[in-house]
């Protein structure tokens, strides 16, 4: 940090990264104080797509809020669906049929694969490699087609219902999911050959943007960012929910804490997601997909409920306070990338601009979810 201390007395300039900038993937603005190409200070400025989702939650019935959950993180929307139905079911004490739980896991994990694929493409695009983006989109397209066939939408899913699902899947979906996993298994080695083993990429990511486990804890970073810093924490395993305990999967953890570690965590997670989907498809029981005794008008008993799920970008926590009426009294959404972005200011000090942008890309930001 000697360079940095010296630069305090030197001439610096402010570089406005965003709100419209190719590297921010949305309307995020980062106010950078630069000394040449070195970042002296970085300050994320939020709120350009603030839509008051939490306040909206207080003005809508419990069921009406469902579509909102899909519009937070539009790349991994099903996890957010899941988080919301889970906390309401917990409040209401609704039992979910097993088939529905399995299908929830299958669709959420497929969605996670789609999200990581998109991140992979966008991240390499940040690093200047254009081609992997289109390879990843090619595969992501298959996931979206699959999910479209059961949920009816391709991005902002609203598939889960309190006590189950909107509709059952057919054999086409099961066969299609298996075919897709077979296809992706064949394609992943290509991804690694094209990108992971590339010397330029390794030089750009290795030992760059190192986040200590300490810093991750300080800012509450979760998900692949946390696991890339050597903390073995995954809500799916540490606070098991749904049918995850019955499925055999590993939680990839890399201790280096650099951008490469976060990259590897996500690439390994794609493989684990495929394992989960395969097992869940094998174990998929017959039966109904929606619980029978779900009241038409939900009025959870008064109380304070919290529940968390592992979304593609980290822990999505949702806290609801019910006063026993048909609208929530308070709804608090804890979105993972908000915390993940918070550490950017401290972590990027003294970094070169391209490295800082590589770090930002490796955090996997989705701006509407940060602003909510």
């Amino acid at each position, binding site marked *: 940090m000697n360079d940095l201390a010296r630069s305090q007395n030197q001439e610096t*300039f402010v*570089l406005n990264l965003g709100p419209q*900038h*190719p*590297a921010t993937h949305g309307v995020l603005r980062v106010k950078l104080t630069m000394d040449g*190409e070195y970042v002296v200070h970085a300050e994320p400025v939020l709120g350009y797509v603030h839509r008051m989702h939490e306040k909206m939650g207080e003005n809508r019935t419990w069921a009406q809020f469902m579509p909102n959950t899909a519009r937070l993180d539009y790349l991994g929307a099903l996890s957010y669906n899941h988080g919301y139905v889970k906390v309401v079911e917990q409040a209401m004490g609704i039992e979910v049929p097993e088939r529905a739980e399995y299908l929830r896991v299958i669709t959420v994990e497929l969605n996670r694969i789609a999200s990581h694929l998109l991140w992979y493409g966008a991240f*390499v*695009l*940040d*690093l*200047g*490699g*254009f*081609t992997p983006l*289109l*390879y990843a989109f*090619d595969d992501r397209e298959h996931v979206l087609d699959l999910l479209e066939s059961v949920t009816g939408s391709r991005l902002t899913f609203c598939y889960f219902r309190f006590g189950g699902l909107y509709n059952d899947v057919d054999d086409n979906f099961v066969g299609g999911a298996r075919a897709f996993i077979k296809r992706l298994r064949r394609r992943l080695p290509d991804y690694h050959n*094209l*990108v992971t083993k*590339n010397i*330029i*990429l390794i*030089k*750009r990511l290795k030992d760059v943007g190192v986040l200590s486990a300490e810093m991750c804890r300080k800012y509450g970073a979760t998900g692949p960012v946390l696991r890339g810093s050597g903390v073995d924490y995954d809500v799916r395993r540490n606070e098991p929910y749904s049918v995850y305990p019955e499925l055999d999967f590993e939680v990839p953890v890399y201790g280096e804490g650099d951008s490469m570690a976060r990259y590897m965590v996500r690439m390994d997670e794609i493989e684990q997601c495929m394992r989960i989907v395969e097992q869940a498809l094998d174990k998929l029981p017959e039966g109904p997909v929606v619980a029978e005794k779900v009241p038409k008008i939900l009025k959870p008993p008064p109380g304070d409920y919290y529940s968390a799920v592992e979304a593609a970008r980290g822990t999505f926590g949702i806290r609801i306070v019910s006063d026993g009426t048909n609208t929530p009294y308070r709804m608090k959404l804890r979105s993972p990338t908000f915390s993940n972005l918070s550490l950017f200011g401290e972590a990027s000090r003294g970094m*070169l*601009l*391209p*490295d800082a*942008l590589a770090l930002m890309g490796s955090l996997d930001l989705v701006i509407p979810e940060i602003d909510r």
Partner: protein
Amino acid sequence: MILSEPWRLLVFVAGIIAFIALNAAYLVWLERKVAGHIQRRIGPKEVGPFGLLQPLADGIKLMSKQLLVPKGVDPLLFKVAPLLVLVPAVMSFVTIPFSEKLVARNIDIGLLMIFAFASVNVMGLLLGGWGSNNKYAVISAARAVSQNVAYEIPMLITVVTMIMLTHTMNLNEIVIQQAGGVWNWHIFANPLMPIAFLIFFICSLAETNRAPFDLGEAESELIAGFHTEYSGMGFGVFFMGEYANIIIGCGLATILFLGGWQCPFGILPGWWWFLAKVYFLIFCVMWIRWTYPRTTLWGLLNLSWKILIPFSLLILLLTGAMIKVWPLITGAS
């Protein structure tokens, strides 16, 4: 048919400018097609057959756009910069032999002249970035300059090696020396030459700001780099200059190492072979661009100062030894 002097010159000027303009237009088309096929899509296909009229449509669009000069820029530098990129490129074509007879001016110091003009090119980028009064453009200009300075050195050392080998700076003369089959090309002159070719090719990638060395216009960092503020033909001229420089880089590589217009099989005219080799190299340039991610400035400078310059110096030394010392040892005169 041999034209008399002033007419010959005019024909060549018109020819070179037409060649550059056509190439700039159709290399963009080619680049988009190559990128498309590398990325498992088709590329332009709507305008005309195979999208062949796309460059025309783009050209009309660029020319009909307002040449916007934003507030706060240095108007003179801002307007001059694109020309400073294009004009040296046009000038460099003067000495490039397309075939034995098809060369505008067969100058004895042709190689030197091309490198002299290539250095002016950097000024264009610098002034464009500086005159734009845009922070991204200034960062980009600073990057472009340090990159060009760093890569001119190994490139020139390689060229000096070639001059030692060929004893001439006349480009046509260099090509004539490589007559008679593939094995007489300078790339096979001695075991070091393939490495020299590689160094030259990497340097020409960096000189022309092409990926993976496109730090000057790193779009995910600097929006569009030094031409962020340019619109219409201001941007178009930068673009033409960039593609003209690529042609010159690949053309020089062809002339110095791959036998220029010499045909290996004795069929088809010389200019055909020259263009075929140049376009093959250009295809490789595009192939590299759509495969690799971008390096950082540090990585780039490290590659130049720690790898390319020592290696090119070593090649220079060994080639010198081969030329001067080897005959002494073997006793050949």
